[in-house]
C-alpha cells in the first residue's frame, strides 16, 4: 500500500514537471517594460497635477492631499468607462500599484455586484480586493508607528 502511494505520488510529480515544461510562460521582459512605461506615465500624470497645483499657489502639504484625490478620481472614472481594465491588460503591475489601481480595485467590484443590491452587493463586496491591502496596510502602519514612538 505504502509503495503504491509513493508510486502514485511520483506519477503526479512527473506530470506536474511535464506541465511546467509545456505551459507557455508569461513574457516577463515585455511585461516588465510595459509595466515600467505605463506606471511611469501614470506617475508623470500625478506629477503634472502636483506641479499644476504648486503653480496655482497651493502649498506643498495641501497639494499632496489633492493629488491622490485627483488620481483616485481618474482611476475610478476610467474604470466606470470600462477603459481601466484595458490599460491593466497591458500595464500589469504598472497600473495596479499606483493609487489609480487601488481606485480600480474598489470601483470594479462595486460596479460588478450592484446587481446584488446596495447593502449586500456594493456595500459588502466593494472591498473584496482592496480589503486585504487595507487590513495589512493599516496593521503594519500601526506597528511601525509604535516602534517609531518607542525608539524616537
Amino acid at each position, binding site marked *: 500500500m505504502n509503495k503504491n502511494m509513493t508510486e502514485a505520488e511520483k*506519477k*503526479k*510529480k512527473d*506530470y*506536474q514537471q*511535464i*506541465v511546467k515544461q*509545456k*505551459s*507557455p*510562460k*508569461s513574457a516577463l521582459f515585455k*511585461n516588465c517594460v510595459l509595466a515600467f512605461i505605463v506606471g511611469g506615465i501614470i506617475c508623470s500624470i500625478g506629477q503634472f497635477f502636483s506641479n499644476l497645483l504648486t503653480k496655482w499657489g497651493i502649498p506643498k502639504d495641501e497639494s499632496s492631499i489633492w493629488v491622490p484625490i485627483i488620481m483616485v478620481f481618474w482611476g475610478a472614472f476610467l*474604470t*466606470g468607462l*470600462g477603459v*481601466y*481594465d*484595458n*490599460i*491593466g*491588460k497591458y*500595464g*500589469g503591475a504598472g*497600473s*495596479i500599484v499606483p493609487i489609480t*489601481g487601488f481606485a*480600480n*480595485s474598489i*470601483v*470594479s*467590484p462595486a*460596479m*460588478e*455586484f450592484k*446587481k446584488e443590491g446596495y447593502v449586500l452587493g456594493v456595500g459588502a463586496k466593494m472591498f473584496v*480586493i482592496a480589503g486585504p491591502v487595507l487590513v495589512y496596510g493599516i496593521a503594519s502602519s500601526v506597528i511601525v508607528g509604535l516602534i517609531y514612538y518607542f525608539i524616537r
Partner: protein
Amino acid sequence: MALKKIGKQTVRLEAPPSIIATSSIVGPKEGQGPLAQYFDTILSDDLCGQKSYEKAECKMAMDSADKAISKAGIQKEVIDYMLSGDLLNQIITSSYTAREMGIPYFGLYGACSTMAESLSLGSMLIDGGYGDYILCMTSSHFSSAERQYRFPLEQGTQRPPTAQWTVTGAGAAILSREGNGPYVTHVTTGRVIDMGIKDANNMGAAMSPAAADTIVQHFKDTGFEPKDYDIIATGDLAAVGKELADDLIKKQGYDISNVFTDCGIEIYDSKKQDVHAGGSGCGCSAVVFCGYFYDMLAKGLINRILMVSTGALMSPTSSQQGESIPGIAHAVTIERMV
C-alpha cells in the same frame, strides 16, 4: 448482470437513441470566431436584454431549449426528462430554466463535462426504456462565470498565457427513441482524476489526465482504435491541455493525433481573439458539438465521432484552501448510421 455494459467503464446502447435536433446560441465574441456559420443564434448583446449576466445565461438556455424543441418538430409536453447543468453556484441557470419548461428535470453538475454527461445519461434513459424524448442541455456565460470564479470584469488584471476564456453559449440536444440519426452508440463514463495541479489558470493541464484516462479506457472497453474515428474531440483542454493529453495517450500506446481536436481550440481564432490558451466552460463543448459537429454528421462529412467533454471539478473555496483541481471526462460515441 449488467447486460449492456462492456469492459470497465463503457455502455453499449442496444437501441441507440437518435439525436433528432440540436440548437446552439452564442455570445458576440464566439460569433466572431471561425465557427460562426454553424450557430443558430449569435447574440449582439451579451446581456441578452436582461438585467444581470445570470439572467442573460438563463435566457440563452431557455432560447436554445425552445429552438431545439421547435427544430425537432415536437411539443415540449412529450419530453420525458430534461437533463441539464451549468457552472453557477447551485446550478441556478439549469433549475431556473427548468422552472419555465415544466418538464421533469434532473439537475447535473459535471462542470464543463456536462454536455457529454447529459447525453450519456439521456441515452441510457432512452435505451433503458424510461422515456421517448429527452432534452440534454448546458450553458455557460463568460461574465457570470468570471464574477463567480475570478475577478470583477472591470478590474485591470493580466491573464497568464495558460488561462482560458469561458465561452458564452448554450447548447441543447433532443434525444429520441425513433429517428434517423445521428445515433449515440457508446457511453464511457469518466473517473475523477487528480494529478495535483493547483493553478486555476491552467485548467487544461488539470483536466487532460482525465481526458486521456477516459479515451484510453474507451478504446480498451470497446475495441475501437483511433482510426475508427473521424474526429475525437475533447471539450475544453485548449492548447496546453490538448498537447498534454496527446502525449499521455501516446504513452499508453494509442496515437490519436490525426483525428484529435479540442472544442476550446476550434471555437476561437487564437491569433486574433486574445483568448490565450483557448475556450472553456460548459457552453464550449455544447455549442461546438450542437453547432459544428452535429452539422458535419448530418451532412455526412463525418461518420463517427468521440465527443469527450472535460470538466474541472474545483470551486473558488477549494482553490482558496489550497486544494488541487480534480478533473473528469465523459465520452460518447456518436455515429451517423448504425
